[in-house]
């Protein structure tokens, strides 16, 4: 008896093929096909604060955006540069403390402390991570996990910056709309800027470092310098999120270095789709409200996260965004072999 085997075949959709190159602007339909996902993202994020029932949920969106920024930074480093940075909390902590100290000791307003914290924090984070940049992935992962555990101990032991009590009473934003739209705007800017960056020359170099760093080195480029640049960018994003957080609630403390800030972005990235910079943002927006709704379960919430994380990483590593992209651009059908 003949054995009939079937396999799935994926083909690009017609409209995708028609939008290659210059033909993308040939008619409204093609433009809409390309622009639609981006418009949905932008408009969706901008409209979300307006449709939420009450202020508590608007706060949740702010927190979700913070996690989205961290997840974005993690994804950029992990998928486009090959650096696994398990310590998002480091950036939050450094950025948050710099903003807190500038505000409470020097009396600068949030409009100044946030940019200062972003840049200075990125510089400091890059400098302290610099020694491990030449090392293999696992060492960087371990040390980036360790830093957020060491720094609070040092602050605790030296009683710096308020010690275990932290710094409270910082200036906050004038109203909830500024809170939300500031961070949403930054998230959108970060997503699109990073997407543009990875298609530029420097993005190519970073991708090359991820694939085969010896080849890049052989071309005469300093790998450590490029990695440092990438870490600087990711750190700037993370430190901004940290500075924003400290002004959101008017507080900075050693719990800024908490493990939660390291784990949740990774979960969001894995869930949302690593490799597409939009996926982690989507993941953060799914996980954060989900976590709020599951609050009644207490610690079981974390167990859920971890199980989701493990499930996705093991069984569906492509994540949601990659899946959606695939469905959007391609269709599948069974054919006989």
């Amino acid at each position, binding site marked *: 008896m003949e054995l009939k085997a079937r396999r799935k075949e994926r083909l690009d959709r017609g409209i995708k093929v028609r939008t290659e190159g210059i033909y993308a602007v040939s008619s409204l339909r093609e433009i809409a096909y390309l622009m639609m996902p981006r418009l949905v993202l932008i408009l969706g994020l901008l409209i979300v604060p307006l449709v939420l029932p009450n202020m508590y949920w608007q706060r949740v969106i702010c927190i979700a955006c913070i996690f989205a920024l961290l997840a974005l930074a993690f994804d950029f480093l992990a998928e486009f540069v090959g650096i696994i940075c398990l310590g998002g909390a480091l950036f939050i902590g450094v950025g948050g403390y710099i903003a807190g100290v500038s505000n409470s000791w020097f009396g600068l307003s949030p409009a100044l402390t946030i940019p200062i914290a972003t840049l200075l924090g990125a510089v400091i984070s890059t400098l302290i991570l610099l020694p491990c940049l030449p090392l293999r992935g696992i060492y960087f992962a371990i040390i980036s996990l360790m830093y957020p555990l060491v720094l609070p101990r040092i602050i605790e032991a030296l009683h710096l910056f308020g010690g275990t009590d932290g710094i409270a009473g910082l200036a906050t934003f004038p109203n909830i709309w500024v809170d939300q739209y500031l961070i949403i705007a930054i998230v959108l800017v970060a997503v699109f800027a990073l997407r543009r960056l990875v298609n530029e020359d420097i993005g190519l170099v970073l991708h090359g470092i991820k694939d085969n760093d010896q080849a890049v080195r052989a071309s005469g480029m300093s790998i450590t310098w490029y990695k440092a640049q990438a870490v600087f960018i990711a750190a700037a994003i993370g430190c901004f999120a940290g500075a924003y957080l400290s002004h959101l609630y008017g*507080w900075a403390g050693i719990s800024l270095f908490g493990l939660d800030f390291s784990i949740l972005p990774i979960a969001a990235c894995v869930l949302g789709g690593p490799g597409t910079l939009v996926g982690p943002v989507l993941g953060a927006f799914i996980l954060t409200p989900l976590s709020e709704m599951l609050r009644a379960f207490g610690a079981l919430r974390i167990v859920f996260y971890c199980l989701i994380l493990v499930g996705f990483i093991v069984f569906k590593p492509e994540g949601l965004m990659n899946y959606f992209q695939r469905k959007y651009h391609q269709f599948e059908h069974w054919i006989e072999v």
Partner: protein
Amino acid sequence: MKKKTLLTLAVSMCLVLISVPSFMAGCKAPAPTGAPIILGAPLSMGHPDGVCTQDNLKLAVDEINAAGGVNVAGVMRPFQLEVIDSRDLEPGVPTSEALLVVEKLILDKKANFIIGGPIRSEAALAAMDTVSKYKTVSILSSGVLTPAYDPKVAADYEKYKYCFRTTGSSKEHIAEALTILDSLKLTYGFNKVFIMVQDVAFATAAGDKIKAGLEEKGWSVVGYEKYPSGSTDFSVGLLKARDAGAQILIPWFDMPEASILVKQWYDLKVPALPVGFMVAAEDSNAWKALEGKCAYVVHLYPKAGIARTDAIPQAEKYIDAYKKAFGGVEPGLTWVAPTSYQVVYILKDAIERAGSIDANAIIAALEKTDMLGIYGRIKFDPKSHQIVYSMDPAEGAVTTWVQWVDGKRVAVYPPKVATDTIKLPAWMKK
């Protein structure tokens, strides 16, 4: 046929089971009729302090509701307790979680008051801004022993007047510790101490002040060690204490690893009496859990109400009620038990006197609080909203220092509350 009879039997059983309690409930005081007063409690449920607070809050709320509720200008309104897990006492959780929970309680659950937590000092300090922003009265009853809380209220009264604290500040505890040490000096002629504290704000503040106070009085402080949270080895410190001949050990710890310290102290037979704040020795099951190694440890409960004492009759009632509700266990999962139970009654008293739940009226009423509770007489300092301490339960709130002797907790200080004097460990009697 059989199935049908089984089904009818089951249904009728259910009906009976449902009707009995409702009948019983109907026999109690008339149910409160007004809209519930919502009490929001942001507690860290993954930690014994949080669970203890919730248990005691619930006990008090159930008692009040069963007795008819709160009389708000003639309308009987029940209390409704909303507890949300804020995870602030778990390591690695940012305080923003706790603040988000406070906001959820106020904005989403429409809480009229925030009671109980947040428990961690850092979170509570940050929450001061949040509750003040929403003009919601907050009365702390668990944790937050940092001395930084009430000066903040006093410094900016108009902004922070919504914040009240019924737990303690380590300041008063230090004064009592010094008095106890003085009495030991008189009785036994001790003059050398070794101080071991956890490296967190309230403990180091206590350690610094005790050291300064003792040195003024002529004691010799032979050592002062600060242990970071999570330390697992205290042998060096204990041996140093032994070698230097310290007669009193002053521990001030709020971390689970403190049990290692207690066990080591006992095993090494260090000839020094531990007097301090040792959470490892505060649970009612501590004797059994530590295999009796917490013997002779003198531990500070920042509020009385846990150990039986003749001086405070309300405490006896509370201990019995707790035992009845929780299956024969004595209160004292952690030291926040009596404070959490009492805070609900304080609020009830304030609401009834104010005749409304408007924040400013309640603040004024709370400042005038003067009631007898399970840890003494309850009054708030009008400027700093801190509960007033005293050595006499008829004057103010008292602590209780207890010593574990033969498996039981014996109150040894303050004198008005004590039932026995401090005993020295067997291996110290020379």
